[in-house]
């Protein structure tokens, strides 16, 4: 996976001046993108580079924002990182480019209440149908007996 080629490729597609690239342990590079041209970036990756394998999408609630990490794999790890505001969190789906992402998006939709615009069937994947406790992975969700464990 030659990183410079991919960076230059993304540079053309994205209006952002300079792409910040972080290296993370075990051979991983992460690039931060604004959410609305995520779809264009993934399309560019698929069409003009050898990267095709989306390992998974990680959603997390970190310092006031919902952050989505798209982990790709091509000889080494490549992560596209976007962060969304907490209120109306919505981002364009990539199931039209990578059908394999449908389950990951459904899971994040129910765990962090992120609406994926254009997802074919955005139903519940893991949580039971009669679940009323709100998105479990959000910051304000507390476990039934969330006493400080681990002493």
């Amino acid at each position, binding site marked *: 996976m030659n990183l410079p080629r991919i960076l230059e490729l993304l540079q053309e597609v994205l209006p952002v001046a300079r792409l910040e690239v972080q290296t993370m342990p075990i051979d991983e590079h992460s690039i931060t993108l604004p959410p609305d041209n995520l779809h264009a970036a993934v399309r560019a990756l698929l069409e003009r580079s050898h990267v095709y394998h989306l390992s998974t999408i990680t959603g997390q609630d970190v310092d006031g924002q919902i952050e989505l990490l798209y982990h790709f794999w091509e000889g080494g790890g490549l992560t596209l990182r976007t962060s969304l505001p907490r209120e109306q969190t919505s981002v364009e789906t990539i199931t039209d480019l990578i059908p394999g992402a449908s*389950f990951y998006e459904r899971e994040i939709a129910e765990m962090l209440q992120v609406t994926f615009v254009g997802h074919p069937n955005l139903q519940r994947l893991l949580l039971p149908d009669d679940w009323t406790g709100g998105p479990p992975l959000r910051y304000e969700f507390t476990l039934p007996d969330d006493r400080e464990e*681990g002493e």
Partner: protein
Amino acid sequence: MSNRMTIPIGPQHPLLKEPLSFMITVEGERVVDSTLRLGYVHRGIERLCQTKTYVQNLHLFERVCGICSHVHTTTYCQGVEALLGLEVPPRGLHLRTLLCELERVHSHLLWLGVLGENIGFQTIFMYAWRDREIALDIMEELSGGRVTHSCNVIGGVRIDVGDAQFSSIVSQLNDLEQRVEKLLDVIQHERTLRVRTQGIGYLSPEKIRNYCVVGPVARASGVDVDLRRDCKYAAYGWLHVNVALAHEGDVWARTMVRAREAIESLRLCRQLLVGLPEGPTQVRAPRRVPPGEVVSRAEAPRGELLYYIRSDGSDKPARVKIRTPTLTSLITVHDQLEGVETADVSVVLSGIDLCIACADR
């Protein structure tokens, strides 16, 4: 009777060891459509692990899935060790990889037995599981546990192999290799098994790419992806892994790929044991992990396993994302079942080596 009927392969069904709700709409004997509902085994591990310390999480991540428990803790420990910047001694890495490969053998033999039982071939189930007992004996001798071994600690492995154990394990490995080879021979020349699995659940390489399928299911369609060779984690740097590939892409090819992988894993086990370096097996690890993120990957028996760990400096992880390989093959089941006979639904479902506990977390 070409009326449309929906058959529930419900949560409680002899075909499934674990609960998974599957509704198949059938016209006559042909499957027309299928819907899948997960969540029966969802225990909320990713939320639960945020309330436990790193050391307690070892105990928790070992029980994400009972069959591939060692690979889960391997990936988790690798990630935390990368965050801590710890260097695991080579002997520890070798023993960790030895258990990974033994678990692959036990998982593939288990799968072979379950496939045999699901197509009504009780004898293969009995033979495969009888031979698998030897693999469980070796793991029990190494770690004290048959299924969950809790060998991994952050910083290495808590077990060690003495000389007496060494010779008994090597002899058991040889015995196991002969049996697995005989089993592979029986499968290859068994007509009814071939007739029941050939041409069913075909996945083209393009579909494998689109659905990002991993593991033996991908390798059976000719997509050459194996993290043991590409990622060189644990002790795979010292080993040369030749990857079992097939091109037919149906359940028969998957059977062949898994059987050959089991034999390859046994060869790797022997190579690891013979080349076991001297020295300590683990390194002390501090309680608190410096803030940072890590994405650690490993090759579970069913494919690529991914752990994303983010720590905020305390002794509890801020976020752990687990992506297990079964999720990718579950997405493809809908396409595999198009136009299949109802009798073959059990072959397709067991062809992708379902591990619902992995998929649901």
